[in-house]
């Protein structure tokens, strides 16, 4: 089983030129040697498959090949060119393209916009042609994807197709596909294979990483097997047999001494766990029974429902079915119910779902069993300390003191703390998802011992693992999952690594085309999700409010009133547009209000009656300078010192208020009358400044939809990491966002100056909150990535209208606040509900 090197004979001649060569590549991650001197060659015109278990080093090897990862040592050559600098763009320039297992796409941008951002200048379609480009390139795959649809509304399978289309568009010499068929249906797999054949017919190269041996046999010319960071041989795909590959892929000896399994298990008595017809998002109709003393294993290729089923038992996303524990009905409708039913869950993603970083080992272990060590709701420190100490001793959690922060422990001891937390609550059913992942060898054995002991004590224990050796050594029975259901059960002697691997690899895992993500939305649903929606809602609200007000008071709808409202609106309008720019990048600027006031104060020293034009200009320039400096200051605090935007701009908020008061303790400096008049110029009843505001909003809207800066603004707010991966210059984008915000706030400040006509140090402060209200009404997301300048302009108009109508309706001014409050909450709730409609 483990005599591998003898059969690793290279059976293919090497007449074809080498497209990519890697020699003696070593790559270590903290504590792990991921690649131990690996040499690999891909020839021009061949499909070269890379096969291996999870963690064998396939993705690491291709990460190095594509410039994502820098190797510790070794050589990489692209068709004779030796790589010196490991950088994705260098690799891309040399014709290497990679399709990642997790698509590098920005969720809030549309398909077309993602393509526009990701492709290099010479291959990029124009904005006008982008939709057509996407449609043409997707035609081949026979799927209907609307190029205008946001990535987050597109199924994972289709996201992978888009990722492939993106890579193919680069016309690469070497195309690396990392598990491309994971989410594909049979027809798409066929299309992919046809396409691959066409690519190699052109003398280009495909490196194909996959778990699925029958696929590899079907498409590849050569197969290289990788295990534990070492090459185990390269074979001719036609002659090598499936079982030869399986042998090499696993071929490990049992390197761990597992605790002994019980000789026999009595399966006649009462089962301690009965699951009947359980179903959820990614699994259907799963039934199984477990008896005291046995450990149940779950296996399957990633994404076939084994993990989802385990989480279902823990109370996540269950849609139906029955669970009985120890003969009693158990509810798993929520994690809270599951815990009450005696279920404890050890999650796979330790940092995301199991550890309370920043809290002590003591607090981490004690959490689930708090109620057991309390009296009248108050903790009994002595009892709790005793229980936790003895549990951590029993599980040999190695920590200097229990007061240590849990993050400072090694992976193995962190995991033991998590298990200790579960066991302290005396669970009847213990669920473990990859219990030994990221754990050193010594701790791994202890974890196996702990799990076995829990089973011996009569608890039902279920382990999901992608490590077949672990399942063989630990479990009494193993269930194999495929497409969300159990397809095979292995028991007793059958529970061997080979059988498990064989069963998972050969399970028929072709997906059927499901309805998921493919049904076309109705026109109504599409309208609801569109960016125009908030604008339409706002216009409707304005019309209703206006009509009602006019029915009560006829002097409302007059040119004079209109004109006044629109002029007053300009200050708020510009400030709200500025705020939106920052919010798009997932930031916020609370200082815009006081900043607009500072602009007035600075100007009030220069823009006075009886001064020359030069002095007026100085006033405008200096106040603009003050605004831009503030923008730069905010940018530095947030991106340079990494202070959260809310806090950074709160500090700026206070600082600017102080500065304004320092410059003018009391209001003073009457603003030049002619300037004020000029700023309030009207064309008919329409103030010129309002027209400028509308033009600005339209222009910014154009920038947002049709320029690289606009796409970048939304991309960094939506997903900064992916934005960087596809080539967005993130720092520059953030810088521009804060500077544009400052410049627009300056415009608002100038209009404020015309309104109040005097340098008032407290002016403008309320505009921060009003601006945010306008932005929220305009439908922008406070999490970044989404919004519309036109929508925000309409939001600002509505806010100003509310302030105006209350006087016409002869309402107390309290109504201004109530309407504002209700509208803001209502709009936020409405929009957040809309976003959840799929």
């Amino acid at each position, binding site marked *: 089983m483990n005599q591998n090197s003898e059969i690793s004979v290279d059976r293919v001649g090497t007449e074809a030129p080498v497209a990519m060569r890697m020699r003696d590549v070593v790559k270590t991650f903290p504590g792990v040697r991921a690649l131990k001197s690996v040499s690999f060659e891909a020839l021009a015109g061949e499909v070269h498959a890379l096969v291996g278990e999870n963690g064998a080093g396939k993705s690491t090897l291709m990460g190095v090949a594509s410039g994502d990862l820098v190797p510790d040592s070794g050589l990489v050559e692209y068709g004779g060119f030796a790589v010196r600098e490991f950088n994705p763009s260098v690799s891309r320039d040399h014709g290497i393209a990679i399709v990642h297992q997790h698509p590098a796409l920005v969720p809030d941008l549309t398909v077309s916009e993602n393509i526009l951002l990701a492709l290099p200048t010479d291959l990029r379609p124009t904005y006008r042609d982008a939709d057509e480009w996407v449609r043409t390139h997707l035609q081949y795959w026979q799927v209907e994807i609307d190029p205008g649809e946001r990535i987050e509304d597109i199924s994972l399978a289709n996201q992978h197709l888009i990722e492939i289309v993106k890579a193919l568009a680069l016309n690469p010499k070497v195309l690396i596909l990392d598990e491309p068929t994971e989410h594909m249906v049979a027809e798409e797999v066929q299309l992919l294979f046809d396409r691959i054949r066409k690519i190699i017919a052109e003398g280009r190269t495909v490196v194909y990483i996959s778990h699925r041996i029958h696929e590899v046999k079907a498409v590849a010319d050569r197969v290289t097997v990788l295990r534990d960071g070492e090459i185990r041989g390269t074979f001719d795909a036609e002659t090598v047999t499936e079982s030869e590959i399986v042998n090499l892929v696993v071929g490990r000896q049992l390197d761990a001494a597992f605790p002994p399994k019980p000789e026999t298990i009595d399966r006649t008595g009462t089962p301690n766990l009965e699951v009947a017809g359980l179903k959820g998002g990614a699994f259907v109709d799963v039934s199984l029974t477990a008896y005291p003393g046995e450990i149940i294993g779950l296996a399957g290729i990633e994404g076939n429902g084994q993990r989802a089923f385990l989480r279902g038992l823990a109370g996540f996303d269950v849609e139906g079915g029955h669970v009985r524990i120890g003969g009693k009905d158990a509810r798993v409708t929520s994690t*809270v119910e599951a815990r009450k039913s005696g279920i404890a869950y050890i999650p796979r993603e330790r940092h995301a779902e199991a550890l309370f970083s920043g809290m002590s080992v003591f607090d981490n272990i004690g959490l*689930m069993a708090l109620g057991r060590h309390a009296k009248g709701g108050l903790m009994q420190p002595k009892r709790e300390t005793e229980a936790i100490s003895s549990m951590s001793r029993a599980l040999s959690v190695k920590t200097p003191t229990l007061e240590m922060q849990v993050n400072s422990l090694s992976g193995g001891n962190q995991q033991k703390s998590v298990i200790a937390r579960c066991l302290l609550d005396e669970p009847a059913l213990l669920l473990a998802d990859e219990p030994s992942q990221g754990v050193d060898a010594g701790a791994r054995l202890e974890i196996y011992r702990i799990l076995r002991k829990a089973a011996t004590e009569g608890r039902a224990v279920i382990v999901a693992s992608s490590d077949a050796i672990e399942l063989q050594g630990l479990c009494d029975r193993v269930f194999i999952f495929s497409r969300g259901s159990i397809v095979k059960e292995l028991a007793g002697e059958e529970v061997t690594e080979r059988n498990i691997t064989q069963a998972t690899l050969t399970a028929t895992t072709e997906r059927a085309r499901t309805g998921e993500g493919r049904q076309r939305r109705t026109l109504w649903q599409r309208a609801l999700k569109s960016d125009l929606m908030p604008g339409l809602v706002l216009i409707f609200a304005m019309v209703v409010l206006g009509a009602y007000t006019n029915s009560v008071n006829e002097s409302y709808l007059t040119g004079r009133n209109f004109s006044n409202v629109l002029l007053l609106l300009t200050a708020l309008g510009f400030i709200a547009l500025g705020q939106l720019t920052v919010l798009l990048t997932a930031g916020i600027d609370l200082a815009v209000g006081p900043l607009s006031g500072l602009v007035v104060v600075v100007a009030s020293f220069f823009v006075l009656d009886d001064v020359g034009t030069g002095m007026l200009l100085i006033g405008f320039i200096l106040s603009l300078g003050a605004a831009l400096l503030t923008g730069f200051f905010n940018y530095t605090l947030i991106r340079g010192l990494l202070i959260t935007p809310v806090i950074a701009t709160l500090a700026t908020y206070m600082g600017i208020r*102080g500065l304004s008061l320092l410059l003018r303790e009391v209001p003073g400096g009457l603003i030049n009358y002619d300037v004020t008049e000029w700023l309030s110029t009207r064309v008919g009843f329409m103030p010129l400044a309002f027209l400028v505001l509308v033009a600005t909003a339209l222009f910014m809207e154009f920038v947002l939809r049709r320029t690289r800066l606009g796409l970048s603004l939304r991309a960094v707010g939506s997903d900064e990491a992916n934005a960087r991966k596809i080539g967005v210059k993130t720092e520059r984008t953030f810088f521009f966002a804060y500077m544009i915000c400052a410049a627009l706030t300056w415009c608002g400040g100038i209009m404020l100056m015309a309104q109040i006509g005097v340098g008032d140090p407290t002016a403008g402060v309320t505009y921060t909150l009003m601006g945010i209200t306008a932005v929220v009404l305009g439908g922008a997301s406070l999490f970044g990535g989404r919004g519309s300048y036109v929508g925000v302009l309409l939001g600002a108009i509505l806010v100003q209208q509310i302030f105006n109508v209350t006087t016409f309706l002869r309402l107390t001014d309290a109504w201004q606040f109530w309407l504002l409050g209700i509208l803001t909450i209502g709009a936020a709730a409405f929009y957040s509900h809309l976003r959840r409609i799929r």
Partner: protein
Amino acid sequence: MAPMIRFNTPFGGIWIATLLLFLVCLVVAPGAVSRTALISMLPFAAILAITAVGQTLVVQQGGLDLSVPGMISLAALIVTRFPNLDDGLVIPGILLAVLACTVAGLISGLCVSFLSITPLVVTLAMNAFILGFVRWYSGGFPTGAVQSINQWAIGSTLGIPNTMVVAIIIIAVVTLVVKRSVIGRRFEAVGANSFAAQAAGIPVRLYVLGSYTAAGTLYAIAGVLLAAFLKTPSIFLGESYLLPTVAAVVLGGTALTGGVGSVVASAVAALFLTQLGQIVLSIGAPTSAQLLIQAATIAVGMGLRGISFRAVWARLKPPVLSKQDHT
């Protein structure tokens, strides 16, 4: 269990800063630490501390409460306007004020936890809503506080101002609940990692809801004390309280991302900020200087937290080879 004050945690820094501040005062402006100066400063520090405790609870759940100004104004208004100088209605007035703010907090909490609206937007809107109510209920004019409650608020017990006594009791109770009760321990866990808390079977939403509700109650108490102490509170007296509460939480060391927090540290930070303001006033600097100094304090305090002293220390120290098991 852990001692209250430890300097190696994020919450230790503010103790040192406050200590230094008072030492500097002794040297530079002894007038600012005289008995009379302290007696006039402490009630404001106490009221800010109570407000900061509420803000801390919300921040521990990863939120931020911008409805502080409204809440304080509302409580102050109800406790003065409802009795309307009638001594007999003081107790109902206090209860009504506390009830009103608690309900407002509950509504905010519902919007955040069950409607999934961003805390910033919810509390901003709640603030606007409450201020509208304050305008309407006050009719635009402030009412004076009842004599008895005012007497009590400016009085002291065993030489400690009564407002301070209330603050100390509140801080002690909240600390006891957060650090020593089942609810409190779960509360901190939810804030530290809500996904892990959910996986461990804790009803996450209820704890988020609870934090806003409890904060509302605390703001109400602060508002009542403030009204009683000032005798004739202006209608929108809460306005100046928002930024200092956030500053107190931040300087106290509770992370804005949520998780483990320290209401004691926030309260100490409130004392620090109030005393800082006193010094600035006592040397005759204008309000502007006070704002600038508060801003600089936040920026410097946050900037320092961004720097990992451990990393700096590790670089200065000679390397030690440690044997750890790997992940």
